[in-house]
Every structure is written in C-alpha cells, then in structure tokens.
C-alpha cells in the first residue's frame, strides 16, 4: 500500500520535472533570446584576461572561486563531523577487522602501483588549468592510492596528525591567497600574479596555486575519511 502511494507521488513529481526539462530543451541554446548569458563572458575572459585553457577551471577557481572556498570548507567540515560522530576514547579504538590477509601478489602489486597513482594525482592537479581535471579530481586519485594501500596491508597506517597538518596548511593557503588579493589593492581572491602565456604550465596567475592547495587538501581529507571509517570495529558492542 505504502509502495503504491510512493510510486504515485513520484509519478507526479517525475511528470512535472520531466515536463519542465523537456520544455527547456536538449542540446540547443535554451537561454531566452536577447539576453547576454554569463557563460559568453566567462569563455571570452578565460583566454583574454586569465590565460587559462580550461574554462571549467577558470570558473571553479576564479570567477566562482568563492563557491570553491565554501566547497573545500564543506569537505573539511565533513571530516570534522565524521571525527566527532565516530569519536571514541583512546583505549576504545578498535583494531581493523580483517577476514583474511591479502596475498603477496596483491601487496607487491599495490606497492608498485602506489607511486604511480600518487604521481598521476599530482599530475592531474598541477595541470588543472591546462587539461581536464584539477584539484578535486587529483585529490581523489591520491586518496584512491591510499585506499589501495589500506586495503592490501592490514596494518598500514597514516598519521592523523600529518593529515590534519596538510589539510590545515592547504586550507590556509587557499584563504590566505584570497586575502592577499586585498593587499594588492584588489578584492578577495583577485589575481595578483602575472598571468603568463596561454597553455604554458606557469600561467593563470593564482589559479594553479589554489588548485594545488585544493589537491593536497582533498587528498588528505578523503584519506582521512577512509581511515576513520576503516578503523571501526566490525561487530556491534551494544
């Protein structure tokens, strides 16, 4: 009975959402005619003023950089909340429950892959302003490297202090670079470095700096999340 009601409710919701989006149209310009959509300005300024090749990066880090600062804060908060929700007193922290240990093929294979994964992650966030990818994507790749190690070695451990130091320093870099914009007579998060030549590694002013900080931060935070959740006791104690 409940399922029928739920399906009916969802059918109504789905119908109206679908009708709305079919109205908007797919694959063709849908903005009302005569308006000047912001995206045209973004695309033009990305090359002209910022000298960044990846328009998504220029939007995420510069035009809408304030969103990204908030986004980084959301991740930081998620780690904080996770730590608070799962907090246990020191002597109660459980050992990881391992059903069976990984074979030597898995362990040596992971060891071999680990540096390559970290390198790929670093590459992705360093080249965030030139190619697809960026701080978030690179950070996630780095965290998968640590996930691999945590899965294959049962007593692999990451220093919590180191993670939180990296996290904090990266966050301070982001907010600090933003505040430095004021010193140069501009506004918060405004670019104050020379922008260089389009499609060079050293181009885009503060954008690569911020994205590298974001990469470190996301990598450290996701690793922290995985680590916190892995160190939960397997069975219930209540």
């Amino acid at each position, binding site marked *: 009975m409940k399922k029928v009601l739920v399906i009916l409710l969802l059918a109504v919701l789905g119908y*109206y*959402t679908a009708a*709305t989006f079919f*109205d*908007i149209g797919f694959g063709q310009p*849908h*903005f*009302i005619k005569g*308006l*000047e*959509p*912001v*995206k045209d*300005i*973004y695309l033009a*300024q990305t090359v002209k003023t910022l000298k960044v090749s990846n328009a998504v990066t220029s939007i995420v880090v*510069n*035009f*809408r*950089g*304030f*969103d990204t*600062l*908030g*986004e980084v*804060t*959301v991740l*930081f*908060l*998620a780690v*904080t*909340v996770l*730590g*608070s*929700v799962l*907090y246990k*007193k020191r002597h109660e922290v459980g050992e990881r429950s391992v059903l069976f240990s990984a074979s030597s093929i898995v362990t040596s294979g992971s060891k071999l892959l680990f540096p390559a994964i970290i390198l790929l992650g670093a590459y992705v966030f360093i080249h965030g302003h030139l190619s697809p990818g960026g701080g978030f994507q690179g950070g996630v790749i780095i965290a998968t490297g640590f996930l691999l190690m945590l899965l294959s070695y049962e007593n692999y451990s990451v220093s919590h*202090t180191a993670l*939180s*130091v990296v*996290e*904090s*320093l990266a*966050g*301070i870099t982001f*907010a*600090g670079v*933003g*505040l430095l*914009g004021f010193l140069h007579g*501009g*506004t*918060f*998060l*405004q*670019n104050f470095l020379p922008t260089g030549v389009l499609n060079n590694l050293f181009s885009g002013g503060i954008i690569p700096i911020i994205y590298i900080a974001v990469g470190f931060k996301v990598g450290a935070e996701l690793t922290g999340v995985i680590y916190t959740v892995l160190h939960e006791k397997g069975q219930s104690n209540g």
Partner: protein
Amino acid sequence: MVGTPVLFIAIPLLAAFLIPLLGMIWKELVRIVPGLVLTYLLILAINLLNHVLVHGPIVEVIAGWVPPIGINLVFSAFSGFLVTLMIFLGLLVWIYSYRFKRNVEYEPALKYFLMLMMLITGSVGIVLTGDIFNMFVFIEITSISAYGLTAFYKGRNSAEASFKYVMMGSIASTFLLLAIMIIYSQLGTLNMADIARKIHLMNPTLKIVSYIFFVTALGIEAEIFPLNGWAPDAYAEAPGPVGAAFAGIVVKAAVYAIIRYTYTIFDLSSSFSFLIIIGMITLIIAETAAIRQEKLKRMLAYSSIGQMGLVLVAFGFGTKEGVFAALFLMLNHAIIKSLLFFSGSYLVYNSTEKNIKEVNGMSKFLPVTSLLFAIGAFAIVGLPPFAGFWSKLSVLTAAADSNMILIMVLVLMVSVVELVYYLRVVNRIYFFKKEADTKPHKPTFNALFVMLVLGAIILLIGFYPDAVTGMLHKASASLMDKGQYIHNVLSLK
C-alpha cells in the same frame, strides 16, 4: 569603514583551518579562538551596520569580477541587521558553551567549537551572498555543521535525530539545485540582482515550478509545516546551547532566503498569499502540537516552529508594516527563544528524560534561572511589559492594516494556546513540589551572565521599543525596495 563584508566569511574560514594547528600548541586555544573571531566579527558588524544605516548598502565584489559575472556580497540595512543579530547570538552561545563543555575532552571540544563557528559562518553567508548558487553552498555548510552538532552527544538518541535531519537536508539540496538549474537554463545567470531584473521574461510555468522547488527546499531548513519532521528531534537531542543556535541563527537564515526569493527575485503576485497560507498552517499545527509535548525541549522546538510560521504570515502581508512586524518578531524570537533554551537546559540539566515534570519546584533551587525562564515564557507569549508584546502587537496592526481580520483572530487564538502551555511550565516551576530525585545543577558564571544579558535585552526592548524600531524600519525599507537593490548591485563598474 573598517573592513569589508567578505571578512565575515574569510576570517572564520581561515580560523577554522588554523584551529587544528593551534590546538597542537596549546589545547585551550581551540576554545578561545572561536570566541575571539566572533568578537572581532561582532565589532565589524556593528561598525558596518552603522555605516550602512547612514550611507546605504555596501556591495562587495569577489575575485575582481563585477556582477553579474562574479559573486558578490550585499551588506544592506536588512542583511546587515540579520548578520549582526546572528553573530551576537553566536557569541552568546560561545560564552555559554565555554564552560558548559569544560568536562568534555580535547578532541570533541575542538570539533564542537569548529562546527559551531562554521554553523554561524554558513548562516551569515546565506544572508550576505548575492548569488543563488553561492547560497546553496552556504546552506550546505550550515546543514553539515548542524548534522554534526545534532549528533554531538553519544548517550542520547542523537544519531537518530541527526539521520532524519540528513535525509531531509539532502532532499532539500536536491530541490534547491533543480530550482537553480531551471532558472539558469532560462536566464543564463546566477546573480540575484540580474535574475530579478530579467525574471519577467521567463515562462510563467517554469517560474512557478522553480519557486515551488525553492520554497520546498528552504522550507525544510525553515521548519515549514509538512517538512519539519526533523526539527523537534534535532532540538531535543542536540546540546542545549545548540538548540538556541538553531532557533536563533539557522532558522533565521533559512527564512531570510525564502523572503529574499519572494520579495526580490521572483515577481509572482500569488506568492504572498501562499506565504500567508503555509505560515498559518505551520503556526496552528505547531502550537497545537506543542501543547501535547512531554519533553521540555520538544515543546520549545514546536513553539519555535510556530513562531517561524507567524514570521512567514507577517512577511506574507507584503506591506511595509508587515515586513517591519516580521523583522521585529525575528529579533524577539532570536533573543527570547535563546534565553528559553539556555535557561531550560539548566532546569532539566541532570535528568535523563528531560520531561516537563522534572522542572517541578525548581524555583527554590535555581531562583535566578527560573525567573529568567519565566521572563522568557511571558515575553514569547506577548505579555505587556516584555519585548514580545510589541512584536505581536505590530503583527496584529499589520494584519488590521491589510484588512485580514481572520488572520488577526487566528493569531490571537493561537496566542491563547501558547499562553496555556508556557504558563503550565512556569506554574510547575513555581508552585509544584519537587518530587523527582534529580539534583538541580547550578549554572556556571558564564551561563548566568549570558542569560542575564538576554533577560536585560528583553526588558529593555519591552520598556523602550524605540531602541530598535528605527533600525527595523530602515531594514524593512531596504528589503521592500527591489529596484534599489538591483541598481546597487548592477551599477558597479
């Protein structure tokens, strides 16, 4: 000018990232630094508000791109008033919790103060921002800290309450994003002023759909009736000062968002009567539910929901008097409900069930706390010498001005219900014999100080309402003037 509005966001974020490092040097710093930050922000807010009341709104551009390209922050008389109120309350919550959390170990304390600071920052961001997607980001910052604070205590059913909140909150963010994308797909911009200028070009159906999605999403945070299932649990299970922060800060930010959408962004004429209807339903249902509650904090939570309904009704009049009344109500509710939460959590400090029964005869053991709770109770009902009287009076006169006699009658009837359940508690505090064997807990010096400050403000506004009405009139004028808002934001070069 001593600073710019972006410092309200940048300084707390910088501090939040710094605090884990500072904690490694000296553990007490994790408790002190948030207070210092909030004190600085309060000074900044008061300075800026004084500036704005004289010289008109400050529009701050971020990353050097003028609106509509970049994100901007607007510190007008209206948003500045709310920001000052929120930071003031945040500071009080911090003072109250400073010793309250003394017995808590280092790591939970670090997390508690971080989450509290981010809760305030997120709410301030919602109020300041001039960009609909940026508002979404701040709403998420606020909600995630709220989830964490709700689940802070281990012993109670706080994880359940928080899980409910998470579910409602993530559904809210889905609807919010849908609404944002509908608007973006039509107008190609995310800036509020730019949208407000162009919205008349939008297809009316799409406009209505996105407005409904917005109100649904924000209604979950603002505790509007069918969407407030999470609120009583969250208030009851969260630590006492956090309940005050929810009622005084988070809900205010969500109501602000609804009002900003209704008054500035959308130009739907029917949205005002829509606000009156949902506000009225919320008011009636919440107040009748409050009378049936057995736990003190759940009762306060339902009362808080009801008050928000009343605020929406007042905003729904759409007149200058209505907005003034609504702002007055928001101010009073923030102060009075915080006092009730602060003093209420000491009245039931040592009990496990937190039932209303357990306040019996507390006036003999905690005379000052009981007196302050009674003042709060009388004030929120709207009895004459206290602050609540003036706000309720202004709601009624605003209703009379708009010829809504039915609304007046209903509000008066609901007030009687409110009077009954608050008097019931006060009656128990003063005239019942103490029966339960729970030991009363003396409030700490900090807590007492905070409660006395709030009590003094209630009396001050009660005897001398002119202290705030001037500012409220300017704030309501700044909300009503849509053309001026658009002009201020978009004329930057």
